[in-house]
């Protein structure tokens, strides 16, 4: 065991290589999502710069897909942003879990914050010591950040070159991407019921409210279901719907879906 606060070379080289290799593998797996996001972003009406800025600044898949999804459906940009922020709250819970584990302060904490996502959390919380947790967090976070942003650029440029996105079925790809993100969560019965009620509420509001409102309103289903039920699994323990890792160490990712 290494010292809990040590930053020194307390990991042997083979262990370091293994942790870094895992992080790189997770980063590569996110490339497919990044390309899809880039293509869907421009199909939704963002330009290449806006699509890339979103990946750089927001850097959390589900929120980004949500913003472009609301825009693609004709919703107001700010209701899209509100939906994206609601989806981003899960990263706050990840941060709570990670804070004592990583033990960073000041500028290190401020820079590390941008890398708090499903994948870096999943590849960090399972480690045996603080140096291993930090290395897992950084190698995964940086690998995903670099590849996600490169892939977004490639997807956005390629998507724009394609022309009318409807001719290629890209509008249908948005729904498919969301379903794939949601899929690992649908094993749980309460999640399935919440999903069905959220979808039903949104559809019932489509004819009577401005675009963007139906999706936001679905948050009410989560509020009520969360307040009325007991004993959820700890969300910080289960990689979420935007979990792209499908890493060897856990089986909640997309590839291990039901």
């Amino acid at each position, binding site marked *: 065991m290494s010292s809990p606060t040590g930053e020194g070379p307390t990991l042997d080289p083979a262990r370091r290589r293994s942790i870094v290799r895992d992080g790189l593998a997770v980063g590569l797996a996110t490339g*497919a999502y990044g390309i899809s996001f880039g293509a869907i972003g421009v199909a939704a009406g963002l330009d290449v710069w806006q699509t890339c800025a*979103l990946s750089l*600044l*927001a*850097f959390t898949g*589900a929120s980004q*897909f949500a*913003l472009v999804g609301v*825009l693609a459906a004709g919703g107001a*940009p*700010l209701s899209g*942003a509100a*939906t994206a922020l609601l*989806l*981003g*709250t899960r990263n706050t819970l990840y*941060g*709570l879990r990670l*804070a004592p584990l990583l033990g*960073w302060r000041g500028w290190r904490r*401020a820079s*590390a914050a*941008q890398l*708090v996502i499903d994948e870096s959390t999943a590849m960090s919380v399972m480690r045996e010591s603080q140096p291993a947790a930090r290395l897992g967090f950084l190698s995964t976070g940086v690998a995903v950040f670099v590849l996600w942003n490169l892939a977004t650029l490639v997807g956005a440029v390629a998507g724009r070159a394609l022309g009318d996105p*409807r*001719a290629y079925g*890209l*509008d*249908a790809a*948005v*729904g*498919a991407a*969301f*379903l794939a*993100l949601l*899929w690992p969560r649908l094993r749980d019965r*309460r*999640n399935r019921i919440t*999903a069905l009620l*959220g979808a*039903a509420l949104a*559809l019932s509001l*489509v*004819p009577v409210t401005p675009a963007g409102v139906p*999706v936001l309103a*679905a*948050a009410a289903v*989560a*509020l009520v*279901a*969360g*307040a009325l039920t007991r*004993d*959820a*699994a700890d*969300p910080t323990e*289960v990689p979420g719907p935007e979990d*792209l890792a499908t890493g060897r160490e856990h089986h909640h990712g997309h*590839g291990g*879906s039901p």
Partner: protein
Amino acid sequence: MIWAAVLVTGLGCYLLKLAGLSVPSRVLERPVVERIADLLPVALLAALIAVQVLADGPSLVLDARLVGLGVAFVALLLRAPFIVVVLAAAVAAALVRLL
């Protein structure tokens, strides 16, 4: 307005992450808060799927997008990788429109 949404989303998502790393855990680590945070993505993503696939402006329509979603559903049941799921849905919808 799109730039405003991009910047608000970007800044907000960063602050949500930073808050988690900075706020004492007892402030937010309450069971009901965790449950709601766990269920929010489920409800919102499901609503997004429904609106994305069935809404056309203020009306609900059944068209090629629903075929795409059905193909995605089957692909997920077969445990296809993400990119295959998305591509299969797009190709299916494009083919339906060609017919």
